[in-house]
């Protein structure tokens, strides 16, 4: 009887210290930060570099058409953004000054559609949203991701980092365990990357299509047998923000080719 009470007390004590369940936040040394590009075979790297053969450009092409298209009298994106959007993608995700919500590129594009084009937002993974997001991000290709952490976005950065550090799924793995602690090692036939996500929307050979970073995060969660969050979930957007800060100025590679 006393032994049962003592064990229960220990258990309760353990559960009441959540920090004990959260591992230490580790970081990749700044001089070791590498894009997912570095973990591809040379043939796939060449495919990404080839601005004709890279299949992601099929969506960028469509995005260029969408950018200049007027629909039902609503202005085209190009009518406001006549100078293009070079550099815009480097600042996202970003806190919307009006609503205080965190917006990624998809969210910002949809907000523009609703507020300035009298149009419905496009759903995630729709051909239109993928195309226009790829087009806008491609305009910043080769430019460093540039997100400063300040008081407005710090709560979101922390939220994203918490998700990154938390074990989940039947495999009980956190993002950190693979992508910070074991990058460069083999997992089946693949070399584990650092998980930066700097080339999205990316053409993934596994999908045989371009896809958003949310689709990739959902695949990651499913990969450890955890329930993936819905597309557009604010937690994923916070993870996107944390990843962008973690990448310490990696260049945008959209449309990247990944396996």
């Amino acid at each position, binding site marked *: 009887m006393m032994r049962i009470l003592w064990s229960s007390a220990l258990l309760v004590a353990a559960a009441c210290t959540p920090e004990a369940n959260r591992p230490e936040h580790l970081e990749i040394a700044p001089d070791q930060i590498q894009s997912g590009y570095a973990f591809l075979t040379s043939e796939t790297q060449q495919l990404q570099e080839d601005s004709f053969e890279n299949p992601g450009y099929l969506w960028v092409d469509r995005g260029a058409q969408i950018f200049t298209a007027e629909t039902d009298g609503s202005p085209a994106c190009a009518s406001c953004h006549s100078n293009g959007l070079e550099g815009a993608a480097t600042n996202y995700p970003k806190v919307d000054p009006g609503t205080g919500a965190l917006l990624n590129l998809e969210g910002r594009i949809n907000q523009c559609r609703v507020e300035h084009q009298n149009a419905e937002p496009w759903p995630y993974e729709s051909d239109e949203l993928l195309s226009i997001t790829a087009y806008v991000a491609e305009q910043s290709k080769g430019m460093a991701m540039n997100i400063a952490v300040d008081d407005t976005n710090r709560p979101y950065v922390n939220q994203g980092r918490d998700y990154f550090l938390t074990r989940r799924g039947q495999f009980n793995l956190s993002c950190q365990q693979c992508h910070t602690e074991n990058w460069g090692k083999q997992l089946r036939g693949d070399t584990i990357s650092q998980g930066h996500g700097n080339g999205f929307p990316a053409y993934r*050979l596994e999908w045989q299509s371009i896809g958003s970073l949310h689709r990739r995060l959902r*695949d990651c969660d499913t990969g450890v047998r955890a329930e993936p969050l819905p597309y557009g979930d604010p937690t994923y957007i916070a993870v996107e923000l944390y990843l962008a800060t973690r990448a310490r100025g990696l260049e945008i590679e959209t449309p990247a080719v990944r396996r």
Partner: protein
Amino acid sequence: MGNKPLFQTTRRQLLTAGGGALLIAASPLKALAAEADLLRARADLFGDRPIREGRVTVTLPPIAENGHSVPLTVSVDSPMTEDDYVKQIAILSPRNPLPLIAQFHLTPLSGKAEVSSRIRMSGTQAIQAVAEMNDGSLWSGSMETVVTLAACVVL
């Protein structure tokens, strides 16, 4: 408790049956079946005409990033003139669900017998190319590529 002997027999039977199934799945029988499909596809295309090895170079990456899309180049040593040119190149797989991947039809206007595309490969195998010349002669080449499983298989 009285059912114990019966349960033991059933379990042993199940284990044996399961083991047998594993043996068959891993056996060379499946590989032989796919190879036979390739030979049949070749016969459908070229009858029983002799196929000589040579003049055809198949280029694939030694390790495929992902079996869904593997870059392939096939080139045939040929002057590609009106009198001496490659008519057709057939690309074959000894392991895919279907043995015939593609047929490339060239003409003297092609100028050079070199074609590239991206193919699907269901596992490590040697992709074969058979070239048919305008005089009906057949030449072949092949190359093996390793195809591995992705890290986080999303089933």
